[in-house]
């Protein structure tokens, strides 16, 4: 069929049902597919986390065997990072929201979009196949350090399934990154210059760039690992003249940008909804754009801060850049606070999750600054201190900011509201459970508990803190269940939402909920970063050039 801005033609009878779903190239359908699938993977990985925490409730626990435990934390980490956080952000949210925000009828490469989803689904499922093999799933940690991940130390198909899975999901991500960047560069509505784009779209552009920088390196590393395992190569074995540490360099050159690939979209989500629920524009739009670019740039230069304890990396270079990355991130946090300052803040569930995200992320970020100092890292590396740090930042972004986004955009995606009261329970139970889970882990790390251990001794002094952590984890599980309940209730007893229930500023709110095929019947004029605000509140409109210099108010 021919895509025209405004006119639609059909030559053949439109397919229905399952076939229509499988074959649809509509970014909204594909985006929702990604979200459902990613959330399903999240719940599976979350169940694994609960098993892990149950095992650690008692010293010398025997809920699972040593081997199963190692598989559990490997697949938990791999699923959360590769199969939930990333695809949820750029396959789910970005796919659905970015074309709407820039006034485009669809993504630039709709069929590639569809393919990306299948690669994600099939690749994700492949990782889980490992559990059904005789030697079990991959069990070397989500980072798969060589030589542990090479054939002599990890024989069996579980590891190979893991490699194939991540290669496929990696390609899915690369294709989505290409799609996003092309869409953002080429399909913006008239009047939407680069500096009038919503900040979520900016985040996705920068994320797309990072994806293109990072994922091919991972794919190359996986190919080398597979070659070592099966083709007799010696990239990572000392006996053959290889260098095991090279795996770490390659992996972390991908791995560090990866965590910013995961974080930036969620920063973008929060940057969208905080202004809307404060009834103010974002404070310092250009500052946020440059902060995004600075974070992305710096994130590519800090990879070896994961390798400080190897003794073979240039400590001052990586330490300096890692400390510096706190600056643009801090700029973002202060911007969010400044946006709220002087506003009229509405504390619905979405905003609660957004504020919760800021609290969690600031603390996680501060412990990150500590880890950026090599001597402190020598002490805390590979202990529960690091586990607590990254869970704070990752859960802060992917779960809290992610759920803030879900509660914000759910009306647009489905045309119905999620229940506010249940949403608040969802938030508080998860939020409180989160702190109870991870604060003890900082102390555990400082007192000497290493990562990735299935058992500890009763004389270690770790028992009480582990038990507290497990209780918190179960609370978080209950919180997540409350979300599921909310979701189900919103289907059984729908409460319709209109086009723009939150008085939002950006173009996605200028069309129906859910949007029609090809998104817009008509577009408002775009003369600022808040086209809908200008339309709905002409007395307080922004339609002045976006230049920062001194204090501008639109009055």
């Amino acid at each position, binding site marked *: 069929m021919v895509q025209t801005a405004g006119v639609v033609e059909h030559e053949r009878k439109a397919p229905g049902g399952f076939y229509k779903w499988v074959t649809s190239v509509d970014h909204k359908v594909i985006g929702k597919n990604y979200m459902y699938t990613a959330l399903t993977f999240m719940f599976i990985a979350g169940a694994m986390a609960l098993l892990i925490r149950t095992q650690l409730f008692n010293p010398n626990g025997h809920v699972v065997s040593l081997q199963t435990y190692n598989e559990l934390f490997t697949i938990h980490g791999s699923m959360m990072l590769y199969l939930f956080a990333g695809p949820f952000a750029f396959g789910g949210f970005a796919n659905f929201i970015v074309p709407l925000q820039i006034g485009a009828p669809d993504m630039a490469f709709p069929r590639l979009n569809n393919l990306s989803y299948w690669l994600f689904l099939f690749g994700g499922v492949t990782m889980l196949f490992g559990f059904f093999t005789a030697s079990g799933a991959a069990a070397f940690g989500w980072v798969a350090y060589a030589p542990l991940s090479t054939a002599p130390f990890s024989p069996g198909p579980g590891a190979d399934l893991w490699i194939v899975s991540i290669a496929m999901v990696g390609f899915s991500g690369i294709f989505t990154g290409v799609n996003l960047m092309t869409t953002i560069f080429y399909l913006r509505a008239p009047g939407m210059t680069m500096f009038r784009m919503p900040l979520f779209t900016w985040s996705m552009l920068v994320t797309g760039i990072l994806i293109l920088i990072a994922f091919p390196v991972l794919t190359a590393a996986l190919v080398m690992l597979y070659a070592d395992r099966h083709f007799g190569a010696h990239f990572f074995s000392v006996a053959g003249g290889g260098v095991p540490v090279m795996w770490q360099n390659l992996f972390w050159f991908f791995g560090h940008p990866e965590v910013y690939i995961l974080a930036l979209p969620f920063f973008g989500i929060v940057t969208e909804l905080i202004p809307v629920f404060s009834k103010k524009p974002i404070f310092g739009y250009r500052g946020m754009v440059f902060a995004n670019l600075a974070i992305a740039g710096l994130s590519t230069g800090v990879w070896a801060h994961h390798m400080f304890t190897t003794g073979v990396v240039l400590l001052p270079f990586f330490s300096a850049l890692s400390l510096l990355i706190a600056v643009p991130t801090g700029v973002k946090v202060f911007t969010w606070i400044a946006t709220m300052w002087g506003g009229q803040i509405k504390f619905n569930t979405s905003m609660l999750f957004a504020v919760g995200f800021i609290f969690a992320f600031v603390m996680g970020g501060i412990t990150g600054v500590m880890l950026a100092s090599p001597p402190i890292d020598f002490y805390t590396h590979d202990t529960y201190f690091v586990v607590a740090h990254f869970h704070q930042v990752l859960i802060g972004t992917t779960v809290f900011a992610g759920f803030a986004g879900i509660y914000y955009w759910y009306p647009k995606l489905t045309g119905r509201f999620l229940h506010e009261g249940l949403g608040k329970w969802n938030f508080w139970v998860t939020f409180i459970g989160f702190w109870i889970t991870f604060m003890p882990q900082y102390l555990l790390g400082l007192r000497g508990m290493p990562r990735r251990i299935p058992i500890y001794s009763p004389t270690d002094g770790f028992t009480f803190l582990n038990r507290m952590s497990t209780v918190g984890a179960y609370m978080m599980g209950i919180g997540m269940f409350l979300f599921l309940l909310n979701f189900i209730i919103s289907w059984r007893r729908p409460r319709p939402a209109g086009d723009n229930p939150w008085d939002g500023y950006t173009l996605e709110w200028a069309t129906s909920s859910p949007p029609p095929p090809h998104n817009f019947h008509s577009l408002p004029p775009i003369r600022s970063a808040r086209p809908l605000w200008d339309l709905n509140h002409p007395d307080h409109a922004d339609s002045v*050039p976006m230049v920062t210099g001194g204090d501008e108010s639109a009055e």
Partner: protein
Amino acid sequence: MRNESRVYLGIGSFFIVTLLVYFFTSHESTGSVLLLASAGLGLLPGLYLGWWSRRMQQRPEDTGEGEPRDITGVIGQFPENTIFPFTLGIGVWFVGLAFVFGLWFAIIGMAFVFGAAIGATGESKRASFSERENVG
């Protein structure tokens, strides 16, 4: 198009600077190669787009004054429903599984891949009914 070109060139230049600092302080080869490749990732599209932006007229979305009517018309052609990405996905998946379970998987997978390639190409031809010279 200029701003897009600048984004890429910014990336490329950033990596050149980082590479120079990194290489001359550490002499470590893996990181240096990766930084060099990343510089290329930015400079190549950046230079290309920069060259193009000088030759082309401003698009409606580059000026601040664009109106929706400026972009009416055909901006892309693709089938609204197509099975071939799914077919290709199955094919790629099976080829991937061949790395784990054996070469025979790859044969089935490649069959799907070729089927998808042929089907998608045929589909593109069929889809452009708005231009009569493309029909058939």
